[in-house]
């Protein structure tokens, strides 16, 4: 008994540290973003003017709407691009591949999920973006020009679309991992029941998929949170220009790449750092919402099967 108590006390600090770091982190973000809220109120989230002025703090205006929309656009695009192949890959690995190949595939996926994102960014900005522009973006524009998001001709290889595709490729392994976890949670008896009724593999998978719907939604949410925070790979491919991208083939900005670009020299201005902290707050909120809903769905589902 006494030993258990001591053991618990010995472990306690580490748990406490994590919670403390989180609290310090959130309060730093809140405290540092306070000046911009006092300066311009909620305009920081509703306007899209970015006007740093030196030596005249009153004239400084920072609106984060454009990079906020950019962040959401890029993340949703990444999900749309990674979900169909991710789901197919997970099903193939689990239902069709023999054991040896299965573990090989899983290793490859693990490696891809763990690669430093700057590698994806470099590869994309130096090689992939050009092909994407000539072989996918231009044809898409020529065929689907009447849809507004494809309505403009891509002028350069660095666009919101490019960043979205790269992010999609990057988060796919992560998503596959989550979906695989989900498939494995389904009790064997369901699968056995399906086969014993004489169902084909296709029919069985359809039943499994229906069972897994909450897991898929949760995986999408968790991946979305991850995509929204990605910095370097996006920064290298999105073009980093401050406008609201109405069409996917124009350059744009995301909150995280804006912070990465501007934080170093924000000391020239009075409110810029604070505005960037407000951007950080937005990312934090987005992360909290996606992660907690995702984890909640995942947990509820695990107890239900």
């Amino acid at each position, binding site marked *: 008994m006494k030993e258990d108590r001591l053991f618990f006390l010995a472990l306690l600090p580490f748990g406490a540290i994590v919670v403390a770091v989180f609290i310090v982190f959130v309060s730093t973000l809140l405290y540092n973003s306070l000046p911009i809220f006092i300066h311009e109120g909620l305009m920081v989230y509703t306007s899209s003017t970015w006007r740093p002025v030196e030596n005249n703090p009153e004239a400084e205006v920072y609106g984060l709407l454009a990079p906020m929309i950019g962040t959401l656009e890029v993340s949703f695009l990444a999900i749309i691009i990674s979900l169909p192949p991710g789901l197919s890959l997970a099903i193939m690995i689990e239902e069709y591949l023999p054991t040896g190949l299965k573990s090989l595939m899983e290793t490859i996926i693990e490696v891809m999920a763990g690669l430093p994102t700057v590698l994806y960014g470099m590869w994309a900005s*130096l090689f992939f973006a050009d092909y994407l522009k000539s072989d996918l973006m231009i044809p898409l524009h020529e065929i689907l020009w009447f849809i507004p998001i494809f309505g403009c001709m891509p002028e350069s290889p660095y666009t919101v679309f490019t960043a979205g595709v790269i992010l999609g490729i990057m988060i796919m392994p992560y998503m596959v991992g989550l979906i695989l976890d989900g498939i494995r949670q389904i009790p064997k008896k369901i699968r056995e029941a399906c086969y014993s009724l004489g169902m084909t593999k296709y029919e069985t998978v359809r039943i499994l998929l229906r069972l897994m719907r909450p897991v898929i939604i949760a995986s999408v949410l968790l991946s979305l949170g991850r995509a929204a925070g990605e910095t370097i790979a996006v920064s290298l491919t999105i*073009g980093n220009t401050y406008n609201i991208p109405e069409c996917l083939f124009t350059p744009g900005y995301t909150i995280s790449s804006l912070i990465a670009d501007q934080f170093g*020299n924000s000391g020239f201005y009075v409110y810029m750092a604070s505005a960037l902290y407000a951007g950080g707050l937005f990312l934090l909120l987005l992360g909290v919402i996606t992660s907690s809903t995702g984890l909640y769905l995942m947990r509820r589902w695990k107890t239900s099967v």
Partner: protein
Amino acid sequence: MITIWMHRRRILSLTLFLVLALIISLTTPSLIAGNKETIHIRGSGSTFLQLQLMAWITIFHKVRPSITIEYNGVGSGAGQQQFFEHLTDFCGSDPPLSHKTWLEHKGRILQLPIVLGAVAVVYNIPELKSHRLRLDGKVLSMIYLGEIIYWDNYYIKRLNPGISNLLPHAKIIVVHRSDSSGTTEIFTYYLHRSSDGLWPKRLVGKDIEWPVDRTGRGLGGKGNAGVVSIVKNTPYSIGYVELSYALRYGLDVALLRNRAGYYIEPNTTTIIAAGENAARTGLLPISPTGDFSKELEAIVYSPGRLSYPITCFTHIIIWAKYPPHKAEAIRDFLSWIISSGDKHILPGYAPLPGPVKGIIIRAIELMKSGG
């Protein structure tokens, strides 16, 4: 069995402990002995200055091994911040202190122009091969305003009669910095001064709203390296970077029309010419305690037949007073730069003209007399 195993483990841990103790005892004396003599100076700031400063520091360290100088390229803005928070002993800054900041710290800080540099306009037009593109402030302004769309535009052709048939009918991809930077300030200041008001005053600064971005043809790159990489990989693009980067990565550099009407390539001669003409304008202070905030006016688009129009000083900012051993080390380093620095100038930079060097000499004197 168990006792033997535990015994072994004890021996193992004991040996490990002894080895560690040995390593520590062997290394510490040298550390302590080293510390006694060595004076450590810390600085941070301008990434543009970094290459040149690191080269100087390396050579200086060979001459005076007892002084170690450390420099982090964190950007001029962050450098100034860290310096005023006393995290560093000096900062490197491309722009001089603003008038307001200077007033705040007047008398307690010294600003020293330390080397000359230039902003090069770089482009990627495969059709031009080795032919050089000529540009002036007005045409550059129209390009960055988004008003000139194609490379075979009438205004560009007019400046380049010799190669007008080579200019392609391709859209111009306009690249700028996505972080706030002294380079952007110097470049936009040049556009403003050389374009007869085409480039408005409100678009001069370290970070501005680029009109061309609204056309979808604008791109932002982080740091000089970011702009270099975009221009290199994007045909029909144009950008502006510090000359040293343009040279190192082999980008095509445009000739720019200077105030006297000549098309000038940025090189050591033309950069020094601009520096000398700037010194003659009377806008530069002669003392390091003075206000340098009018410096851009003096050196950007400066008069003179040979002056390259987008030339700039980069600075080291120090306190007037330090603890004695630090003051001595900094003085030694500055004296060495005055006497031997010119021999170790890297490509893309140029040595200071004589009158401006006088500012550093005055700073050394001021530090000797104790500020």
